């Protein structure tokens, strides 16, 4: 009996969402009196023994070259094989972009019930029950897994990265692997920018900013906060901003610590993508904007005056010039 956690990497480094999954999986192991183990597929550029600081005792590392590119089918087979070999009865992944491709495959392969996008630790006393968001964040459901093996994919930013200290034993593992059916022809990752779904702070702009030429004030604020930038749907539809910044019901769903909405009215479909943010700040010139009802802090005012001043005040606080 053990908890097996899949560690998703980018350029050989564990993603932050995977550090959350490690911390979460280790906590489940502690809760159920079993051990937590991790699996890393493909080349790693970080010290895997150090993943022990999140509470895992063992790291299975599969170094075969075929895993240097992502193929959900091969990844699934490898994780399933290791899970069976190690007798894992709980498998944890992040509900990040790769996790969304692997977790359901694993579930079907192992006939193991999946809770996709968990937001709480499981209740493990009797039934194994985990909370997830449903209705695009407007409600939650308690989902019970009725199979011997349980799979949980953890929503990014739903569980804190927790260091408990320790070193993991790193074991070189081999699995049966065919050739990848999916060929990765190119990878295009904007360097230096904070990925939206991993960001702790997000600064977002709406139609109130009037045009793409006014996004400088949004970017300046994002920069001092080390934040990712986002936008409302009409802004992406009008090509003022790229599509991968669109948040909401039909865009990305995010859950940062801080979400700052500038010139966004707060339509229900927009809120569906951002209402899990811990703290919401709204800047809007219309005191009746519905977003204020969903906000923690607000300023009724003109974004073009307020935002540069806000950037300046934060710069002062952070002591950067």
């Amino acid at each position, binding site marked *: 009996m053990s908890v097996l956690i899949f560690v998703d990497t980018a350029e050989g480094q564990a993603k932050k969402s995977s550090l959350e999954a490690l911390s979460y999986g280790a906590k489940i192991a502690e809760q159920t009196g079993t051990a937590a183990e991790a699996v890393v597929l493909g080349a790693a550029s970080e010290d895997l023994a150090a993943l022990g600081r999140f509470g895992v005792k063992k790291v299975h590392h599969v170094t075969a070259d075929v895993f240097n590119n992502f193929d959900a089918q091969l990844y699934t087979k490898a994780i399933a094989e290791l899970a069976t070999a190690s007798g894992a009865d709980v498998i944890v992944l992040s509900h990040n972009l790769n996790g969304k491709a692997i977790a359901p*495959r694993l*579930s079907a392969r192992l006939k193991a*019930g999946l809770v996709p996008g968990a937001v709480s630790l499981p209740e493990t006393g009797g039934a194994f029950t985990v909370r*997830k968001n449903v209705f695009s964040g407007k409600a939650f459901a*308690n*989902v019970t897994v009725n*199979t011997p093996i349980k799979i949980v994919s953890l929503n990014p930013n739903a569980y804190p990265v927790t260091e408990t200290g320790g070193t993991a034993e790193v074991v070189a593992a081999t699995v049966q692997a065919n050739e990848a059916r999916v060929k990765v022809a190119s990878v295009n990752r904007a360097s230096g920018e904070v990925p939206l779904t991993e960001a702790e702070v997000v600064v977002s702009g709406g139609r109130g900013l009037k045009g793409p030429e006014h996004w400088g004030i949004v970017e300046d604020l994002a920069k001092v906060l080390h934040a990712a930038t986002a936008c409302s749907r009409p802004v992406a539809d009008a090509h003022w901003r790229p599509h991968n910044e669109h948040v909401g019901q039909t865009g990305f769903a995010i859950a940062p610590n*801080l979400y700052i909405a500038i010139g966004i009215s707060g339509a229900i479909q927009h809120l569906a993508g951002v209402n899990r943010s811990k703290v919401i700040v709204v800047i809007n010139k219309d005191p009746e904007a519905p977003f204020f009802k969903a906000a923690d802090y607000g*300023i009724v005012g003109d974004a073009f005056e307020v935002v540069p001043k806000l950037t300046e005040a934060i710069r002062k606080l952070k002591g950067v010039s």
Partner: protein
Amino acid sequence: MKILVCISKTPDTTAKIAFTDNNTKFDTAGVQWIINPYDEWYALVRAIELKEKDPATVIHLITVGGADAEPVIRKALALGGDEAIRVNADSQDSFYIASQIAAVAKEGGYDLIFTGKETIDYNGSAIGGMVAELLDMPFISLAAKLELNGTAATLTREIEGGEEVNEVSLPIVVSAQKGMAEQRIPNMRGIMAARTKPLKVVEPAAVDALTSVTSFGLPPAKAGVKLVPADNVEELVRLLHEEAKAI
């Protein structure tokens, strides 16, 4: 080319979310049902575009649901597609639904199976991957672009902070998201044509669900917004730093 598009029905995006039966059931009173936006705007429309390019293409739609799913699947047929299949079962968990879709797909010999990125009520992002595993097919998740060249497909999928281009041979399962196509409105001709398109009802395969929802709940309401005057941004910064500990 034979395409299967998975269509689910979801409450309208503005529907009031409430629960009955001691918080174990979604309260459907007064709810308007729509085609799940990802299935409609992205998956179905891209399939229609592919058929427009290659008229020999056949598009089947599938939904797993009771008779109450028929208006929604007819609406999908009004946009396009040749025929629809309804698996007559109250959808239970993702694995149950995926198994039904896989059972139909196995018979159908499809080159391309489309799902939406996720349903906007269960938010599982799970069914496409399960169908792919059950059919032993590659799964390209969260794809924003798809081009076909014979039996070769080139897709762009989202990765953290960027995108990745994948090349793969058909048959494949794809979950579609924004970028894949532009939303369309059904026209009168489509609506008329949909009335006579075949809608086949099949009985479900015997499958056990792997999970069950034991209860629902609503998140606690926000305490209410604290407004700060526009000429005192320093106060907002102080609150965010000291009170909310967010910066």
